[in-house]
């Protein structure tokens, strides 16, 4: 048997004692992410690069400790929660932007660099990095790769996997290897594509080569103001099926609007039932006609008003409300639980009605703010954890909402990941054979059960200690996987 003392000595020998945390008061910062579940690791280590990461991985494998990689801890599916304790490998010391190459339009970054820093570094060359999660001021590129993160502007431009050319990873068995590189479409299996979105279960990303895009020549941002979510949903369908693909179409409902306006003063109409934020970019000759068509679609569906941002400052303000909306919900209640279902766009209206029915049946309040163009819903249940029994009701409602999405032909997650939160729901979508087939990739990368355990796929023994998750499962009823 290995003692914790031996583990700490080994970690300190690799990364230096100053880069290993082990006191209880230090560790509690690393027991959770953006979700509800918590688990205390035995130690947190901060390696400075691939060599140290590989050494830590090999040490933990040899001593039999679980490993959980961690970026900024903003994840929304429990991906960075150390489900079987063990060691958290935090990427915070690997945060340099190593290179921005304006000719090849690529950047090479370390995994701990925050998403926004990359775009800031690219901006001086007239370039930007496309995936823009709402947490982009904090979340890291490494975390984005692990979760295949999206964001409002993914409607036209795609998610993380569409913008990453290559990654250097330390595999779950401690090998350092490049997957992909600086060019597109190399022959051979697309291991890069297989690794992105694997939620930290195949290894730790230690370098990322991303594509950068030219900053759009011009942008038009519209704010369509509606009496109801239904009117706004109909507009989304009309815009998409008219042949337009905007850069973004975001929806906010009344609850969200009021909280965002109260907290951020972004100029939203507080009395509206819903708004759509619709954006087009490109050359003025093309986007002006697109904006005209989208405006007409809004009015046709019953919009009371359509505003056009007059300048960059107004555009910035409209987006500030959208990106800060979830945080602003704190004005309504101290806790929130954000879901991430996807449904076919044609089912938006029906599914939104289903969500309303579920939350009112549980006596809860929901705020909706989401990527309407993709059919990617983010119902956000606001509540007060201190009221006994509330959390259980919230999780139960969440599970039912996920089921409604799946039943409508949708999926469990569009961009937040399956993690620890929804792995038990996977059998709603995939057969046992499908899941076993997916699981084989773990062994390919050398994960034999101790690398970010209990995530993504339905978990085995040793993962059932998180009571909250079980409550959700009970609520999900007889269809739930057991």
């Amino acid at each position: 048997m290995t003692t914790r003392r031996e583990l700490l000595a080994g970690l300190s020998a690799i990364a230096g004692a100053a880069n290993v945390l082990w006191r209880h008061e230090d560790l509690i910062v690393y027991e959770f992410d953006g979700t509800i579940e918590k688990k205390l690791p035995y130690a947190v280590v901060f390696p400075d690069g691939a060599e140290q990461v590989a050494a830590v991985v090999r040490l933990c494998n040899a001593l039999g400790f679980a490993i959980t990689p961690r970026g900024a801890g903003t994840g929304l599916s429990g991906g960075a929660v150390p489900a079987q304790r063990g060691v958290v490998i935090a990427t915070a010391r690997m945060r340099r932007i190593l290179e921005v190459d304006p000719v090849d339009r690529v950047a090479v970054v370390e995994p701990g660099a925050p998403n926004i820093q990359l775009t800031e570094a690219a901006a001086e060359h007239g370039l930007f990095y496309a995936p823009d999660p709402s947490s982009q001021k904090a979340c890291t590129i490494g975390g984005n790769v692990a979760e295949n993160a999206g964001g409002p502007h993914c409607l036209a431009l795609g998610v993380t996997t569409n913008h990453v050319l290559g990654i250097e990873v330390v595999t779950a068995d401690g090998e350092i290897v490049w997957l992909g590189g600086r060019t597109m479409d190399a022959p051979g299996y697309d291991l890069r594509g297989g690794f992105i979105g694997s939620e930290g279960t195949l290894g730790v990303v230690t370098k990322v080569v991303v594509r950068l895009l030219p900053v759009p020549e011009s942008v038009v941002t519209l704010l369509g103001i509606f009496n109801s979510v239904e009117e706004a949903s109909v507009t989304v369908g009309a815009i998409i099926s008219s042949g337009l693909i905007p850069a973004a179409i975001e929806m906010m409902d009344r609850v969200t609007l009021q909280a965002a306006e109260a907290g951020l003063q972004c100029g939203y109409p507080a009395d509206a039932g819903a708004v759509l934020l619709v954006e087009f970019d490109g050359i003025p000759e093309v986007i002006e006609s697109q904006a005209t068509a989208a405006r007409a679609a809004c009015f046709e569906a019953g919009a009371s008003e359509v505003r056009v941002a007059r300048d960059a400052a107004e555009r910035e303000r409209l987006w500030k409300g959208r990106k800060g909306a979830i945080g602003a919900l704190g004005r309504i209640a101290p806790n929130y639980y954000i879901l991430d279902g996807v449904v076919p766009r044609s089912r938006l209206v029906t599914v939104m009605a289903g969500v309303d029915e579920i939350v009112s049946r549980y006596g809860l309040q929901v705020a909706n703010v989401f990527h309407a163009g993709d059919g990617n819903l983010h119902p956000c249940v606001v509540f007060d954890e201190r009221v006994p029994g509330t959390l259980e009701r919230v999780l139960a409602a969440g599970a039912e909402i996920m089921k409604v999405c799946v039943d409508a032909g949708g999926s469990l997650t569009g961009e937040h990941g399956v993690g620890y939160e929804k792995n038990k729901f996977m059998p709603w979508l995939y057969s046992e054979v499908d899941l076993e087939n997916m699981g084989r990739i773990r062994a390919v990368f050398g994960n034999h059960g101790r690398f970010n355990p209990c995530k993504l796929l339905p978990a085995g023994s040793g993962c059932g200690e998180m009571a909250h998750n079980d409550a959700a499962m009970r609520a999900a009823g007889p269809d739930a996987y057991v």
Partner: protein
Amino acid sequence: MRDLVAAAGDLTVVPVGGATQLELGNAPSGPFALMAAGAALRGEVQHEREDLTAVVPAGVTLGELAAILAAKGQHLPLDPPLAETSTIGGVMATGLGGPMRPRFGAPRDFVLGMTVLRADGELVKAGGRVVKNVTGYDLMRLWCGSLGTLGIITEVTVRVYPMAPAVDLECPVASLAEGLELVERIYRADVRAEFSDILAESGEAPALVLRAPERAVPALEALTGPLRRLTPGRYALCRDAGYRLDDVLALRAVTTPSRLRALATDLVALKPSTLVVRPLSGFVRAAWDVGSAPNARQFGGALDQLRGATAAVGGSVVADRMPAGFRGEIEAWGPPPGSFGLMRKLKEAYDPAGRFNRGRYIGGI
């Protein structure tokens, strides 16, 4: 399908979709049986216009799919070589893109979900039917471009796009360098051409060939000078060159944009009958007809040199068409990357006995 695989016994199964890329890769190692996967996997396309998705049985050709989508004003802007007769399963398995690759993505980028027949006879799926989805491991990206070595694709769910009115245009350019420069300026000016290739046929001046929305034409002409309508057939040439019947020898190469000019120039020195440069994906394809093809020794030497020059940035040079006599001496894929050990493990995880396309893929997988 299962029966066909079982009937092959110990022979390596070589799945055939539209039979447009049978020459791709190495010859199978050992005895093999061609399997008519395309014919076995026909069926109805479920096109959801409002959702911009379609569920397509793998044996449906892109030509058939295009007609179904066009009836509702949509299309799949994926234009691999010989698209009309290529099956969607085959296109995903080979992973070859076309002129619209820089703007809309490689074949894998269109895939929302996929079902695959594994070598042991199990049907397995990944992904789903919605346009944004991170539920589960993204096995679709491993299956795309794997040449059927991990499983035979049986059904593909794709994202489709509204058809936007656009015009095909061209203008002559003085040199490849000028063409590259123009494509760069058009891109930086944010004029979103649906494709922009440079096409050079032996004995003719190179031309810039592109497609753009009508409203963008004045902005384009401000950069390029007067453009004329593209002669019909020239687009197909950009798409198909290298894979036509009289292309006896062809290669494709990918490098970084900054090295593309040097790579293309090296290729010009080999006097291909057709050269297509796709600047925005760092891509070049060269094709030779019987009259222009170098011999195996010359071609092999040139490949080695080109592969050496692109290796530093992780580029690649693949020989897609070779006369039978070249195959003994020349490796089609080039040296495998540093991650080849993982590739081999992946193959072992999904097809341990090497039942599918044994020996045809990179590194002899």
